[in-house]
């Protein structure tokens, strides 16, 4: 009997009737509707608003006595179906948690008692008994944290003094014949919903007449034997539900001066559908004795007390709190929707896909131009949201049409710094990103710096080292090739995944830098794969003198950057899903079986390089091993960097290209080399095999 309030538990002697208190049941649509009302209509208005709820007399056997509010609670008229009855509610939404907490509950309870008593005394409730089915909802909505605090009062009058069981409760079939029951059932089906209680008058000859409750005074006047019937939300075998209580109070009030009505038969009418048939067999019949205090029978003037505050889930008298951020906070909704979208891919297509691994990958995007923007967008598509943008320029008027994170307004007033504009854009696109911006010039070999600038450049290098250290992947997407040298070296030294993309007018290169693998195999996987500079036989130099195609990214076919950026991200994700990760051996189109051999990454093969030629819609997948005299990733250079640190880097930056060439032994080869670059490949040349 956890939800009754007034009657003392198990007293000796007569058993007092107890009522099952309502349990609040809030549909998620109610909270959405309340939120919109608060924002659009109520504002700071704290006055009580009229709302409505409903209860069912057809609940399943295991359920508590629920009262429901939903999105329709705020509409002008209650909507009910065949099993449900209206509840008249008041909503008082407070502006602060303090006002909610400190509101005078006793005052509210007394006010409700007063209103209920007036409805009974005036006879208004006899005409419309559902007016006695009431609730008050106190609420506070924290729209920052989406925590909803609420407390329901289901006011019920403590009147009469007591109702005492004269017999044990019994099922309706034991008190009425089948014919009488179907008569009652049909009557209820036709009753308007505000008539949640009615009367059966019994005549001396055994005939019965079903009447509206408004006929009670007349029946009493005629001294007819009467049964009170109430539509009952409870499903318990020994208790009626809460709404029955006020109806009994009204009944008692109207018979208080007629001692012959101190004994009353109560029908708790319940119905549910079972196998397509209306079933009322769990309705109860109770024989009750009404006990008044002397005052109550002598034209009492005192207003009865009311009770009915809902308890918390733990049974304490107090308010409830529910955190709805998962369904209300648009940021969380976006996160869930994006997450579901990715999960669908796993459920549907790639069950082995390790999404958490992908989603926790941190990416450093060096270069926030055409490639950087598109790479970032594609990474977000995969749920990779830890992004660090680096660039050294500002958004200019020609950029937004190609650089998909920027818009016209970013170009105004001299242009926004690209890394910052990129971060702002990804935050607009998806607030769940964790994006940071660094505007910096990446030091380059053969671009000497003055002594006065050395301290500042030193800081830049330290920052770049730190950024590479804290990320898992480095994307090289700058528009000069020599600016890729330093991050290639640092990435190789720190064993990070380095992804590279470079563009020609209608061709592109996408590659992953090699990471030394162990184990034996053929030439494509026995050794470390090459880096961007491995194929060079010249050290990176000042490309303002020596033309490079990377420099020309602004005159590429616009689709090229999108294709290359997308391939770079897809290649990364495929690598991440490969059991050997960055050390995955390269699949190459040089091998005949590259289209048919077993695929180790669930997403497909993991080439070393993807080179595409848009004019012929041709794609090849070359694989090259690392060059032992590489100016960026050879052991000699890495060792030198790791031993001498920034001093070594400054030597490279300040020297001519030959410094690195001498160091690696490239100078010896230099004599017979052409100024070949990764791009200098004629169309009829076969890319099969390593170059």
């Amino acid at each position, binding site marked *: 009997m956890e939800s009754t309030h007034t009657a003392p538990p198990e007293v000796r002697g007569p058993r007092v009737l107890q009522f099952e208190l309502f349990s609040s049941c809030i549909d998620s649509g109610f909270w959405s509707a309340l939120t919109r009302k608060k924002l659009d209509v109520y504002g700071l208005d704290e006055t009580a608003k009229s709302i409505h709820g409903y209860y069912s007399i057809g609940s399943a056997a295991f359920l508590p006595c629920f009262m429901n509010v939903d999105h329709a609670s705020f509409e002008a008229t209650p909507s009910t*179906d065949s099993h449900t009855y209206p509840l008249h509610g008041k909503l008082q939404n407070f502006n602060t948690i303090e006002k909610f907490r400190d509101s005078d509950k006793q005052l509210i309870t007394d006010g409700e008692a007063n209103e209920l008593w007036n409805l009974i005394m005036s006879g208004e409730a006899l005409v419309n008994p559902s007016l006695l089915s009431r609730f008050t909802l106190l609420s506070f909505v924290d729209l920052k944290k989406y925590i*909803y605090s609420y407390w329901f009062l289901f006011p019920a009058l403590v009147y009469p003094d007591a109702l005492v069981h004269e017999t044990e409760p019994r099922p309706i079939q034991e008190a009425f014949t089948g014919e009488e029951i179907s008569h009652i059932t049909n009557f209820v089906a036709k009753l308007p919903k505000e008539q949640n209680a009615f009367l059966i008058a019994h005549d001396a000859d055994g005939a019965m007449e079903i009447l509206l409750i408004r006929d009670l005074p007349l029946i009493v006047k005629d001294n007819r034997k009467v049964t009170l019937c109430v539509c009952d939300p409870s499903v318990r075998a020994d208790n009626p539900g809460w709404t029955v209580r006020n109806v009994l109070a009204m009944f008692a009030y109207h018979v208080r001066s007629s001692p012959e009505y101190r004994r009353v038969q109560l029908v708790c009418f319940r119905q549910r559908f079972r196998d397509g048939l209306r079933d009322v067999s769990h309705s109860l019949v109770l024989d009750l004795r009404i006990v008044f205090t002397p005052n109550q029978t002598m034209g009492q003037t005192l207003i009865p007390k009311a009770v009915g505050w809902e308890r918390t889930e733990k049974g304490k008298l107090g308010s409830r709190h529910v955190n709805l951020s998962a369904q209300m906070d648009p940021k969380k909704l976006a996160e869930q929707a994006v997450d579901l979208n990715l999960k669908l891919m796993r*459920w549907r297509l790639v069950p082995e896909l390790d999404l958490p691994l992908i989603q926790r990958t941190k990416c450093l995007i060096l270069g926030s131009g055409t490639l950087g923007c598109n790479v970032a967008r594609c990474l977000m598509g995969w749920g990779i949201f830890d992004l660090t943008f680096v660039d050294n320029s500002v958004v200019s008027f020609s950029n937004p049409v190609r650089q998909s994170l920027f818009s016209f307004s970013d170009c105004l007033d001299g242009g926004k710094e690209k890394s910052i504009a990129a971060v702002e854009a990804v935050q607009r696109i998806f607030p769940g990103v964790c994006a940071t911006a660094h505007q910096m010039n990446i030091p380059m070999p053969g671009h000497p710096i003055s002594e006065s600038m050395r301290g500042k450049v030193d800081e830049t290098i330290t920052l770049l080292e730190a950024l590479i250290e804290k990320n898992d992947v480095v994307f090289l997407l700058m528009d000069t090739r020599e600016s890729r040298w330093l991050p290639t070296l640092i990435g190789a030294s720190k064993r990070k995944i380095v992804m590279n993309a470079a563009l020609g007018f209608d061709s592109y290169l996408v590659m992953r830098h090699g990471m030394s693998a162990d184990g034996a195999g053929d030439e494509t996987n026995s050794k470390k794969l090459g880096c961007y500079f491995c194929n060079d036989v010249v050290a990176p130099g000042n490309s303002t003198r020596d033309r490079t195609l990377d420099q020309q990214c602004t005159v590429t076919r616009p689709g090229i950057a999108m294709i290359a950026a997308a391939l770079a991200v897809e290649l990364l994700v495929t690598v991440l899903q490969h059991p050997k990760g960055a050390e995955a051996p390269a699949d190459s189109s040089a091998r005949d079986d590259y289209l048919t051999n077993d695929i180790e990454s669930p997403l497909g093969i993991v080439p070393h390089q993807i080179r595409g030629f848009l004019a012929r819609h041709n794609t090849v997948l070359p694989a090259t091993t690392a060059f032992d005299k590489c100016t960026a990733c050879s052991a000699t250079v890495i060792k030198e960097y790791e031993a001498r640190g920034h001093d070594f880097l400054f030597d490279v930056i300040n020297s001519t290209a030959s410094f690195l060439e001498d160091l690696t032994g490239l100078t010896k080869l230099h004599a017979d080399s052409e100024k070949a670059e990764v791009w200098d490949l004629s169309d009829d040349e076969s890319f099969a095999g390593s170059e």
Partner: protein
Amino acid sequence: MTTLEEYYAAVADFLELSERVGDGWSRFSSEDIRSPCFEMIRRRQTHSRRLTADAPPDIIFFDYHVYFNEAFAVPQLLFSACRPDGSLVPLTTLHELIPKHLLPEASERELVWETLSQIEHPILHCPIYALHPCQTAAFIRKIRSFSKSWLLSWLSSVGPAVGLELSPQYGIISHTDNITSINTLEHPIST
């Protein structure tokens, strides 16, 4: 393809059946309704489980909505579930809760789940899961050639995968109806 009028007619037929089965499908609308496509039907299904023998039951209300998807011109099934305090139950919990016996093949159930997306409920404005309607048109075209209660047939084919229970009474009632409609072919009943 289903026209809006055909959808309305099917909804009316279905609600009539549901009224007789008594499983609580009802028309669901709102005063601030903006489009006739939002003419929805809804059913609430209560699920209760006890995590331990003496714990109070964990009660969850499954909510099923059908509305007319204009873009695909087919009915679409939406569902969500909330606790008595109005908080929505996360999808992973729902996936666990839905009785496995409802569909013989686990893979069939997964197929439906694979197409879920999270949308904003057109009337309630809270998140709700939607079954993708891309297969619905083909299914309905097939079913309509031999079933008058195509909406019911469609619901009973996709619903169980997301926990929707449809009473066997539907089968009995609609079977009787088919016999009746054959007998009264010359006197079509208008609703």
